């Protein structure tokens, strides 16, 4: 008996302080609700000046926001008190999940018109498709009418992916194109020089020269993890650059076409020869981890990686050894990679004014100022969507090595005409048809099977071509 009561007392001694601590934290977190602790307004900001926003109590309502859990969004979550200072009568409930889960949750919600979310983060893949279905609210008009929002500051190429029949159906939070990262120290030691605009053949040559698996350094790192947003994104931009395409104008699959097949073969062969082991397990994060560990001589991926791998916190050992170059070219100068995370509003939202206020705030220049001021740096500030960021001296101070390449890559990318020969679809690193999510997943499974040697590259190309044809037939695109 006494032993049991001792045990209970001991457990209580552990539990009570823990729960009190958690409850204390909770109370702090709940301060984020309207009316609570206004935050200091963003003080001196280096950026060319949007007018300071005045509180607007006339807008009220409760909005449910579904967001992908990337660092920029997590920072935004932390700045909700600033939003509530400006809009004291708007309550924001956030749901933050990893990319796959939030995609599934948002897609279920919007396509079923369930009305759980008022505002969601989606990509340019979904925006025109969902706008066509009438599931999204047009938001460009109101944003353009607000001079302080500086709608013209947003990169036109970003807006192009968010447009359907003249209407803009989402506001970009941050954006990216593709670029090449490399290790300057390794290149120097080997007496090599990375041109500013490399070709894919040069990437393979450098890979061969720098591949040193005995010392844990691999010549070329690329995403290999199957998935339409992972491996298929990389391969699709490579197909574009090589002069290939997924479909011809009549929606006949073209992956077995000479240029497309050459791109896929190059991808598989290069990674098999100069890639890291287990590359079929590597998505963006895993590849970034390899790069930070000093294991990649070269890496072609999203421009948004630049800020991560040059940050001494994220990359303590090699941050100052990172070199930058444009996306590798072949027949086309670029693979036309263009992606953005955007805020869009469900057309069945019952708090549209509050939703619009939130979206405009989150994608405004004022927000960028706030996050930089609050966090004391650009680490989690949204970039790649507004030109003014690339004129900001404080940003250029940390991004001088890559800012020009990023801005040029974004401006040069043309996902509305992504290929050398004409295609019936749009999209740079994806094919904008609703079926591409499963087609991209399935085709990249075939290519991953070739990466691990379970089937030959030619078999993988044929299998993917077959899948693409079947999708076009089943969906009624092909006569």
């Amino acid at each position, binding site marked *: 008996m006494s032993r049991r009561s001792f045990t209970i007392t001991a457990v209580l001694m552990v539990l009570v302080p823990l729960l009190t601590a958690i409850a204390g934290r909770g109370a702090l*977190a709940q301060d984020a609700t309207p009316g609570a602790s206004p935050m200091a307004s963003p003080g001196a900001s280096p950026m060319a000046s949007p007018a300071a926003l005045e509180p607007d109590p006339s807008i009220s309502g409760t909005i449910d926001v579904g967001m992908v859990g990337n660092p920029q969004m997590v920072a935004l979550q932390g700045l909700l008190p600033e939003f509530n200072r400006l809009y004291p009568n708007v309550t924001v409930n956030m749901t933050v999940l990893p990319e796959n889960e939030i995609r599934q949750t948002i897609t279920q919600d919007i396509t079923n018109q369930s009305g759980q979310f008022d505002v969601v983060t989606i990509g340019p893949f979904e925006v025109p498709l969902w706008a066509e279905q009438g599931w999204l609210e047009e938001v460009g008009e109101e944003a353009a009418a607000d001079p302080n929002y500086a709608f013209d500051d947003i990169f036109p190429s970003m807006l192009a992916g968010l447009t359907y029949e003249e209407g803009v159906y989402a506001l970009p939070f941050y954006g990216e194109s593709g670029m090449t990262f490399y290790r300057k120290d390794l290149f120097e030691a080997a007496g090599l020089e990375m041109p500013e605009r490399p070709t894919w053949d040069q990437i393979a040559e450098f890979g061969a020269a720098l591949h040193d698996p005995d010392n844990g350094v691999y010549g070329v790192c690329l995403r290999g993890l199957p998935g339409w947003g992972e491996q298929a994104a990389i391969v699709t931009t490579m197909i574009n650059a090589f002069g290939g395409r997924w479909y011809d104008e009549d929606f006949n699959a073209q992956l077995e076409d000479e240029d497309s097949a050459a791109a896929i073969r190059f991808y598989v062969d290069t990674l098999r020869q100069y890639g890291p082991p287990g590359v079929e397990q590597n998505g963006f994060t895993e590849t970034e981890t390899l790069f930070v560990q000093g294991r990649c001589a070269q890496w072609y991926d999203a421009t948004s990686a630049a800020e991560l791998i040059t940050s001494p916190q*994220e990359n303590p050992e090699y941050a100052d050894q990172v070199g930058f170059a444009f996306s590798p070219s072949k027949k086309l100068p670029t693979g036309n990679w263009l992606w953005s995370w955007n805020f869009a509003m469900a057309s069945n939202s019952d708090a549209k004014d509050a939703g619009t206020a939130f979206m405009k705030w989150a994608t405004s220049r004022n927000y960028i100022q706030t996050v930089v001021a609050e966090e004391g740096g650009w680490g989690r500030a949204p970039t790649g969507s507004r030109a003014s960021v690339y004129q900001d001296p404080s940003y250029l101070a940390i991004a001088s090595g890559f800012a020009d390449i990023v801005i040029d890559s974004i401006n040069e990318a043309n996902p509305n005409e992504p290929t050398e020969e004409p295609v019936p679809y749009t999209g740079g690193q994806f094919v904008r048809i609703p079926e591409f999510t499963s087609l991209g997943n399935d085709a990249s499974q075939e290519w991953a099977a070739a990466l691990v040697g379970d089937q030959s590259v030619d078999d993988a190309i044929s299998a993917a071509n077959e899948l693409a044809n079947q999708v076009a037939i089943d969906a009624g695109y092909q006569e």
Partner: protein
Amino acid sequence: MAVATTARPVVRQPARFAIRRRGANKEQASALWTVVAWGVGLLAFFPVLYMFLTAFKTETAAVSLPPRLIFQPTLEQFRTVLSGDFLPFFRNSAIASLVSTALVMLLAVPAAYALALRPPKKWKDILFFFISTRFMPAAGVIVPLYIIFREAGLLGTMRGLIILYTAMNLPIAIWMLRSFFEEVPKDVLDAAEVDGANVMRLMTEILLPMIAPGIAATIFISIIFAWNEFFFAVSLAAAGTATVPIFMVKFVTSEGLFWAKLAASSTLAVLPIVLLGWVAQRQLVRGLSMGAVK
């Protein structure tokens, strides 16, 4: 372990020798099994230990190769994780797990009692029907479930989550409890009936105290399943009544390092269950070693 050698009566020399040798062999075998059990135990525990250690690392230390077991610990990840809104997630998980488990027990105890001690006709079919509701993978039912939830206004509500977890755990609870009830000697029941105890009295004063460890184990398993459930929660309740597993994964990002933060949030997520298990361990061991779930 050593009891076998001393308790036997010893008569003749050769037999004694044989017994001693058998005993020595047994001791050796048992020592070997102890080592194997420890090995398997440590192997099974290692991921949890590694998670716990990773929670105290910086993000770059968490991904460094080879992994470091000795490092400068930091509370940075716990600070980041707790600077979010952990409490609402914790509250949602606690309510969903505890209320659904209470409902499960309320329904499962009478059902298991009837199936074990007063079996109706075709009781085997009934038992099979209960468990058959668990045959289909969750992904197979998610679309109809989603539509039903939407039409019934249960999306993102605590009611929906409680109904779901009750239905999810009920079959397992009935199966477990039935096997505990079956272990009660018939004579005890007969004696109680002869003494004129009605069903209520029989249940509260005789049966339930006898199978208390089994009930504890069933409650514990029901709470664990509900606490850990992710798929239904993320699909049907992420907006509105998100639970601890959803809090946990929000640190997974496709951009940037997150292992240490994920380890810290996972440590927080498993802590209540570990504490609960620790408190109830004696009951649990007895409960899990009786009945059908040996």
